[in-house]
């Protein structure tokens, strides 16, 4: 063996062999669980009654969809997702436009964006939970200093969802801002100058010069922020655990409750397949839009 030059693999075999570690990992962690979850969703499964394992077809799907909470959870999820995605996109667009201007401390301001991005989502949630505390929280204290009455940020079921959305925006907007900033910075100066000569004002310039050029970035932000909001778990677990009276229970959190608190694995798997299909549809719509944009 020693001294014998090993024969080189052909391109084809090298390419496939190089994928083997990926096949193994994805097979174990993604493909197998996906198939097993489908199987689970079609059977009666509960860890508390391990011997019951009857094929019940779409029974689990039926149970989930007709559960008393299902309607509320879907409403909450849609509301949370639309509110969070809109707020994140608009806010980060505004910040990106401002951070693209020349001003003292611009570098520092951009560095600060990394702070919420780096802070673990669970710490973000717990941080806001402390800020929102009805009796000891700093926000209510400031309100009272200003002569206003305290708000039950996490105890009032009409308010709690907005509180969670603010926390989600704080954590998510820096990523979107940095992405949009790249798009805004790539708008050529002379396009701006030309539109200035034509007498376009700030809003016209934004609509006709900047916006068309950064539209692909905006769609990217919409795609990812929608997916992350639909699955949102950490922030809700940390701040409200779905309460008060289920007013902040979204699909991502409910799935955890069903599967890992009530140990209804079959129903959990059915619910996760419903969610997966919804996400696929949304991703498809967005990606179609993205391809139409870029051709």
């Amino acid at each position: 063996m020693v001294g014998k030059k090993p024969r080189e693999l052909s391109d084809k075999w090298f390419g496939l062999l190089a994928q083997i570690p990926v096949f193994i990992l994805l097979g174990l962690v993604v493909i197998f669980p996906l198939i097993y979850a489908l199987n689970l969703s079609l059977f009666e499964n509960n860890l508390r009654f391990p011997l019951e394992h009857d094929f019940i077809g779409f029974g689990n799907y039926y149970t989930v969809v007709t559960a008393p909470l299902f309607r509320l959870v879907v409403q909450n999820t849609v509301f949370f997702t639309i509110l969070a995605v809109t707020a994140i996109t608009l806010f980060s667009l505004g910040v990106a436009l401002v951070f693209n201007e020349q001003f003292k401390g611009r570098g520092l301001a951009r560095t600060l964006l990394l702070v919420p991005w780096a802070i673990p989502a669970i710490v973000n949630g717990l941080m806001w939970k402390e800020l929102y505390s009805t009796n000891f929280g700093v926000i209510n204290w400031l309100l009272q200093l200003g002569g206003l009455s305290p708000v039950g940020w996490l105890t009032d079921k009409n308010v709690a969802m907005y509180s969670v959305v603010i926390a989600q925006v704080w954590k998510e907007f820096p990523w979107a801002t940095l992405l949009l900033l790249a798009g805004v910075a790539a708008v050529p100066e002379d396009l701006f100058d030309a539109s200035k000569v034509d007498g376009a004002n700030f809003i016209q310039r934004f609509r006709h010069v900047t916006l068309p050029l950064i539209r692909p970035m905006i769609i990217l932000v919409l795609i990812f922020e929608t997916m992350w909001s639909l699955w949102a778990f950490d922030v809700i677990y940390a701040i409200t655990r779905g309460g008060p009276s289920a007013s902040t229970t979204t699909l991502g959190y409910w799935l955890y409750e069903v599967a890992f608190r009530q140990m209804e694995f079959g129903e959990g798997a059915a619910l996760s397949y419903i969610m997966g299909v919804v996400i696929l549809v949304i991703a498809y719509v967005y990606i179609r839009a993205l391809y139409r944009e870029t051709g």
Partner: protein
Amino acid sequence: MKAKTKRIARKTITLIFAIAVALFILLPFYWLVTLSFKRDAQIYTATPQPFSYASPFYANYYMLLTGNLPPGWSPEDMAGSRLARVPMYSQWFIRAFVNTVYTSALTTLICIVAGALSAYAFVTSRFPLKNKLYIGYFATRTIPATILLIPTFMVFLTLRWTDKNEAIILVLSGILLPYAIWILKEYFATIPRDLYDAARVDGCSRFGILWKIFFPVAMPGIIAAAIFVFMAVWQSFLVALILSRSVNSMQMSVYVSNFITDVDIDEGFMATAGVFAAIPPIIIAFLFQKYIVRGLMQGAIKG
């Protein structure tokens, strides 16, 4: 003259908005840090004094790190139930921190090694199903981790594999590997083909080229991918929550959340643990800002 006033007005508005954004970012975190410097009586009050701290101000940190009362404190200084838990909190803290470093480092290593090999083959070789495979890897990004966790949890339970760091590493490696491949491929694709061909003609082996040419040339991409995976593991909560049963595999994210129980919240220790969990990723983000921002701007990175 008018143009000048207009420019100054624009500058002022920009600056005011930028300061407002900076305050929006900093004030919540600042408040978390101040809470970590307070003792219970200074937290549970309707009129918080922003600048009054425990003495010594690092009392909470001291307790979590050593498991003992800070110098100058007597047992009467703390509520009995809280006092009794200090040694346990401290033990957990050390374990959770070590576990998280281990999990994050090993997952990063796996993703970079397997990811670089795969990305290298995508860039340099032609093989069957190449494009379909790449799209397939990419598609796994849209699958919520929760779907995967139910069956994974059941299998690990049967195999008695819950409560092991290695189980968490395995699952997170599988979830994060496609992201790593994506970033690495973007960077590898910028290396000129001629460089590869020339090295092949000179008789350099495929692994030799990956190691001696692609790794050094694409170092910014390797760093970006490594940081991204590391941060994602450090931040991951749901996988750790479900797959760890005790202190044996407790991760920092789960440790922090332990200070909320169904009955009460230990706000002081929670703030302290939260700062501990946030500091390493913040330091990494600042140190490698250049690579992160470049990677983020490619739309590739997400923690």
